[in-house]
């Protein structure tokens, strides 16, 4: 869980970096150049397969864990005061992850499928991802879906980032406080950057 999670985190860094190219506000020129590179570079194409395998493994591990954990407590407590000993999002990783997976279906439907079609049809050089962004984020319901996805991601990361290090046995008075701080800042900054795209495009700040 921890290893696959950190692997997926590394992808988020790349994704958010490319998204941020829209803030040049140059009619999507920089963004489209970056998107075109990602869609055509052979190394990135191979890494995309690795990414999907990593995601599948993460989901598979999560399902296995959840099923085993359900079996470990066949009779539920009448009352559980979880707030007394742990954060709500650390106890809700399965729900947050499921929301993320649902969001991913919509998200890939919006952008990934279009790019794939263009790759297969040989029209990738004319493919304008920025135009797709403008279209999707002109609709308020997509903006809401994306914001729900991004906030699920933020809380998923708030627990997941530091939790991954603990799973791998990295816990020490010297550097664990730093890991926890980096985890919080990473989750908040990455997710605010992600959220900024649909918001600014919907409001017409980025054109």
């Amino acid at each position, binding site marked *: 869980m921890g290893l696959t999670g950190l692997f997926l985190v590394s992808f988020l860094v790349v994704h958010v970096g490319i998204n941020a190219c829209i803030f040049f506000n140059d009619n999507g020129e920089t963004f489209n150049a970056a998107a075109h590179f990602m869609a055509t570079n052979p190394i990135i194409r191979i890494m995309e397969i690795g990414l999907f395998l990593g995601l599948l493994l993460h989901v598979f591990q999560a399902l296995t*864990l959840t099923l085993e954990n359900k079996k*470990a407590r066949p009779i539920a407590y009448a*009352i*559980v005061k*979880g707030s007394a*000993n742990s954060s709500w999002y650390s106890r809700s990783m399965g729900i947050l992850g499921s929301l993320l997976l649902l969001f991913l279906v919509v998200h890939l439907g919006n952008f990934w499928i279009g790019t794939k079609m263009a790759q297969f049809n040989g029209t990738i050089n004319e493919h304008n991802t920025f135009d797709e962004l403008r279209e999707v984020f002109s609709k308020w319901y997509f903006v809401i879906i994306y914001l729900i996805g991004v906030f699920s991601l933020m809380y998923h990361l708030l*627990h997941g980032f530091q939790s991954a290090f*603990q799973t791998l*046995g990295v*816990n020490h008075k010297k550097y664990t406080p730093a890991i926890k701080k980096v985890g919080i800042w990473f989750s908040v900054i990455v997710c605010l950057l992600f959220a900024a795209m649909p918001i600014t495009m919907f409001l017409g700040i980025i054109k």
Partner: protein
Amino acid sequence: MGGNSEKTINVTLKVWRQRNANEKGKFENYEMKGVSTDMSFLEMFDVLNDRLITEGKDPIAFDHDCREGICGMCSMYINGQPHGPKQGVTTCQLHMRSFSDGDSIIVEPWRSAAFPVIKDLAVNRSAFDRIISAGGFISVNTGNAKDANNILIPKDAADKAFEAAACIGCGACVAACKNGSAMLFVSAKVSQLALLPQGQVEKQDRVLNMVKHMDEEGFGNCTNTGACEAECPKGISLENIARMNREYLGASFTQNK
């Protein structure tokens, strides 16, 4: 019940009653009038049981032994928390002054597939004993008490080992964990030996065998919520779980078998 304060409260207990492991249980209500706030939670149960016996009813089975907070026998999941609302104490050290007049208190047994209910609030925690038998010991001869002093141990290692050894095996970690995981218990037992030179010889076999046995007993998996650490009456740290994970990863990759 040698209370010297005059303060008393009335509470309603909602207690899990179950005749044995195979029969289905249910909650029963008991009105407790004039409970001294100096009473421990267990003493209140003694009073209730006296009453039930006088009435010719079946007293409530619950685990207890030293009543000094050091044996790990008492359990009870009180109002959604193992050992009740106070942090760092066992149920025997929980006093009725932690409750208010008119409170309704729900008392359940530890809920875990690996801890089957024996009767009412008493559960069978011998799964912990079997995990210890799988590797929580050292088989090298460490000599007599004076010989132990021949092996010098750094102070911080001794302190950490001692803190891990403070685990009383009560099972509150399993009860608190939403996954019913026993990682805090097992990691404390792995740590207390792995930190000391006498524990080095068998450290790889120990962690592999104990973790394997933990899984076989049907405990859940750790998702690092930290509930176990927060509810542990002895303040066993999550650092121990990380140490066990390190030991386990290392042993998995380097074991010569």
